[in-house]
């Protein structure tokens, strides 16, 4: 069963117009504090605010890394992202939805990992995923993961990442564009290619 927080409406930020400033027109009372409120509280010294925030996003973040690296590296990168988040808590600004900020940190850490593991190699040249494309690895993974996850492994990183961010956190194309450092249309084009390839694989 998928946790409710991964499928619910996006939490958080509502940059309002000035006309809406008066007592936050259309305010919705939610039972749980928004991600941004918890992060602000944690940044201000409320250590207890971290755990609910962590539990909301940990599995999605972990799976994000599992879609790109093996389990050992995923655990290391996962910890690094939370460490970076803790160190950069004073830098967090609530205008950006927390989940977009979290996955921007994750994307940056992942890119850093790839650059360090293969210095001098362009990211696009090391794709699609490396070891998992070996026949033995493919055969082994087919026994443990489903067809969609296998098909995802065949996609270039930038396309795979879009699918993962959409599925795990329902990030918008604009947010993904900011994370990848490209324009919205580029993300749209990459997604279009990704869907076409996935359809080819899954229709077989």
């Amino acid at each position, binding site marked *: 069963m998928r946790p409710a927080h991964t499928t619910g409406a996006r939490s958080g930020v509502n940059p309002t117009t*000035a*006309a809406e400033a008066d007592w936050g027109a259309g305010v919705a009372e939610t039972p749980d504090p928004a991600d941004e409120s918890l992060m*602000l509280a944690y940044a201000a010294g409320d250590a207890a605010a971290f755990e609910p925030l962590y539990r909301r996003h*940990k599995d999605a973040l972990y799976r994000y890394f599992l879609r790109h690296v093996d389990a050992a590296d995923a655990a290391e990168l996962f910890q690094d992202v939370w460490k970076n988040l803790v160190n950069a808590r*004073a830098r967090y600004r609530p205008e950006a939805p927390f989940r977009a900020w979290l996955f921007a940190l994750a994307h940056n850490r992942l890119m850093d990992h790839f650059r360090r593991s293969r210095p001098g190699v362009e990211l696009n040249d090391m794709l699609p995923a490396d070891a998992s494309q070996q026949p033995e690895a493919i055969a082994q993974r087919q026994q443990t993961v489903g067809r969609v996850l296998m098909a995802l492994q065949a996609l270039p990183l930038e396309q795979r990442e879009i699918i993962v961010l959409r599925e795990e956190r329902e990030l918008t194309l604009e947010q993904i564009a900011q994370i990848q450092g490209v324009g919205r249309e580029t993300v749209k084009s990459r997604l279009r290619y990704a869907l076409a390839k996935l359809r080819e694989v899954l229709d077989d």
Partner: protein
Amino acid sequence: MTKQSPPQRSDDDQLQRYLAGGSSLSHAYRSEADEVTPPELDRAVLEMAHAAVPPRGRRVSRWQLPLALAATLLIGVPLAWNVTRQAPRMEPASGISTPVAEAPVPEVSAAPAATAQRSREALAAVPSVGPVSGIEAASERRQDASRQKVDPPARKAGEGLAGLNDVDGIGPANEVSTEAEAPQVAGETAEERSVAEMDVAAGAPAPVVAMQSLMAPPPATMAPASKRSAESVGGSTPSRSWGVPTGWNLAQTTDGRYQVGVDLQAPHDGAASAVLQGQTGRGWVELSQRLSAVQYRGLRLRLRGFLRTDLRGGQVQLWLHAGAADAVRAQGRIDAAGTVLSGAHGWQRVDVVIDVPADAETISLGVLLFAGDGEAHVDQLSLVAVPPGLAADDAIRDGPPPLPQPINPGFEEFVRASR
């Protein structure tokens, strides 16, 4: 390398269906991707996160509360007795109509009430008071001195706020610059102004405060009165106007009830201060600005502001942030800082200092109220480069030329729009 062929039109349909949600791909992904973090990983991260935050507050022992009550009575009763006995001897010539707060709060004196009165006068005189460019820069020392002066007799409450309601009657602010009115507006004597003018004319180093609170609201930035919401003091005098101060950006969450505006009562200095108000103790609201970092690169930069809080819950934070060009390299870097206040306090000077990286692209600053139940005021923001060898509050008289400042740092220019 083979070039990818362009997707077919059906791909666009597929894209639209996928973005709309509920596609078979999404269902399949979510049924397959069910990994969760190992418990040892959870423990490691949670321990790291808790260890990074110092414990809050301190334990209160059982005898501290009665002891505090006894001390309060011991000091408070004789003090109240003395005040009562001395009250008839006070001379009414001071013109101070608001009682001075007895709490020993720094920066708070009789001045706020009188300054608020001057603020109303300033608004009444809006058609004739323009930006006094020659005295925009003045030192805090002079401000402090001016606050300690005895103010002229106050006018009747609300007299000057006709200017706020009668927007159509406001002429271009720069048409007439009536310098004679400036001392009344800002509480600054002509003598002090002439010193300031001499400083500027002689190319003297920039004083700390970037802008005095002398600017009348330019008509271009004023919203129609019907679009503004105002609160009254004494039934007839609008003392607050709700909306976004000119030059500032507003952001807020959906999980709280907040409003922002300008308060004409008791600013720290000048005619107004910004007020952020929250009702529910949930969510957050923020006023912020972003500036180019070009002229701040490599500097130790100090944001100074004055904050006043009346919070039953939540916290207010004055923050400063240098936006990095390389997000990867900046991940572990501390190029942002904030100072947090909570509870109820009179005006307090608050400094936030960061070292601006050489690759910074933007400087962002703002005031944030989160989990707010109550209100916070902010006034007189300024940015100053602090020489590395000096503490944040050292005088910067021999420092570099003035840096670009936030727009409307004293919140006198009001208001872009509001209800």
